[in-house]
């Protein structure tokens, strides 16, 4: 039986930590995204014609939201579990009568919630810059939630794997950020040369951005069904890795 009280305790603790560092947790990513709107949406976007019939400023909104979601999900979840490992307070979680399910619900649930809130705020903020049209709001919410969860799971794995602060930043900097920028956040992949279009299909972020953008403008690089399948597959792989980590005690128990 799941220890809901324990999961709730970790979740509340992590949410309170975000609230106590509100500038870093919420304000900072929102300011960064607004700057993207100003630079790409207004300054550069005003000189670009429409993309697939959508103004460039509006076209990049889903990509920008995804950019914030992915980076924030990974950062929140990785730091959330890495910090107690770093300080040694993880002993308490490991000696508590809980399984990895409660730990995931607490840490990943809180990281995903924070990212979701940031995503919604960015979406609302973008309304001040461009005219937003959300054709499929339920799909939009579905992709938003799934992305928050799947990349929070990835961040959680990074936080468990990292044994110093450099490694904690390594994957987000060298893998996540390039994947996001090359994942069609600011363009459709058919704008790329054919060879790079093929390479892009190996980038999981392409499927996320494509599916999410489809929910807004019904414009997609790949079919929405494939996008959904890829996100679910990615989530399942992350869950399997975390299950293995807790089963073996890798980096957690000696």
């Amino acid at each position: 039986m799941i220890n809901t009280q324990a999961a709730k305790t970790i979740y509340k603790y992590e949410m309170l930590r975000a609230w106590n560092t509100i500038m870093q947790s919420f304000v900072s990513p929102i300011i960064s995204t607004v700057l993207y709107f100003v630079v790409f949406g207004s300054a550069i976007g005003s000189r670009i014609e429409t993309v697939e019939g959508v103004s460039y400023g509006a076209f990049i909104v889903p990509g920008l939201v995804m950019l914030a979601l992915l980076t924030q999900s990974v950062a929140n979840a990785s730091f959330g579990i890495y910090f107690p490992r770093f300080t040694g307070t993880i002993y308490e979680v490991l000696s508590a009568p809980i399984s990895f399910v409660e730990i995931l619900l607490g840490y990943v649930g809180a990281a995903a919630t924070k990212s979701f809130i940031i995503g919604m705020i960015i979406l609302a903020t973008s309304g001040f810059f461009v005219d937003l049209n959300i054709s499929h709001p339920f799909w939009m919410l579905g992709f938003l939630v799934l992305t928050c969860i799947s990349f929070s799971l990835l961040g959680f794995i990074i936080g468990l794997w990292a044994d110093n602060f450099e490694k904690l930043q390594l994957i987000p900097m060298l893998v996540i950020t390039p994947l996001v920028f090359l994942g069609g956040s600011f363009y459709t992949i058919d704008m790329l040369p054919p060879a790079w279009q093929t390479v892009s299909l190996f980038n999981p972020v392409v499927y996320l951005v494509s599916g999410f953008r489809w929910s807004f403008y019904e414009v997609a690089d790949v079919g929405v069904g494939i996008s959904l399948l890829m996100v679910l597959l990615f989530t399942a792989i992350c869950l399997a890795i975390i299950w293995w980590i807790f089963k073996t005690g890798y980096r957690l128990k000696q």
Partner: protein
Amino acid sequence: MNLPDMDTNPIISVEALSKVYGNGHRALTDITLNIHTGEILALLGPNGAGKTTLISTICGIVNPSEGSVKVSGYDIEQDYRITRAMIGLVPQELTLPSFDTVWHTVCFSRGLFGKEPDPAYLEQLLRDLSLWEKKDSAIRTLSGGMKRRVLIAKALSHQPLVLFLDEPTAGVDVELRKGMWNLVTGLKKLGVTIILTTHYIEEAEAIADRVGVIHKSELLVIDDKQALKHKLGKRQMTIELEQPIASVPHSLSGWSLELSGEGRQLVYTYDSHSEHTGISGLLDAVNSTGLLLKDVSTSQSSLEDIFISLVGTE
């Protein structure tokens, strides 16, 4: 090492427990022991002996390589939700969330163990530990002694039946150490079973009911404190002489006497449990030699003497 134990219903039962870390270091070798309900057990041993590994394994932080551990009859791996709920752990290091307040971190610990909030209990706990006045203080602002007590409050926040204290008085001053001893004996009165690891033999001597000695991954001995002294300790009689002598007289050679104190003391080591200690005969023999006696005294080995004899002086 299998040690005989008559307890048929121990709160913790460790059976043939071994631990070899990934780097090949053997931390525990075939440990078997029972811990009785309501007792204070002190685990003595030098650094790296395996004390922390033993309690970390029982608490679920370290995976055992071989053997089993049961808490109140429940296996720590199969029934971990039940066993861990019964245990509180105070780690050796002051591992605390520095930016949290005392109240917040104690509430977190209670929730983590699946217990509903109970502000009245936690208030009493913090008062008992003289922390109530500091409940809204950030942990980073507290002294080392207070931080140690916060760790104890966290470990007791879910009302465990068993409390593990890993080196609770390491690096603390004498006054605080005595305070900690009072706290531990107070918890025992409330029915909490306490297992503490320590370097300080005087600590074990002062508060423990039983003492176990771990050395180089093995449990060398575990027994009642007094029984241990009787079994492994030596009793000595020191005969102080009026005048120094150069060597033990030939007529006293049957007693294996040791000459010390610059020739002014004859030291006789004997077994107090044996039917014939030989004391009367020795005193008669000393009188026969014509030596004048100034004083006669006896002494019993301390736990420290026993500890050193078991593990050496390292």
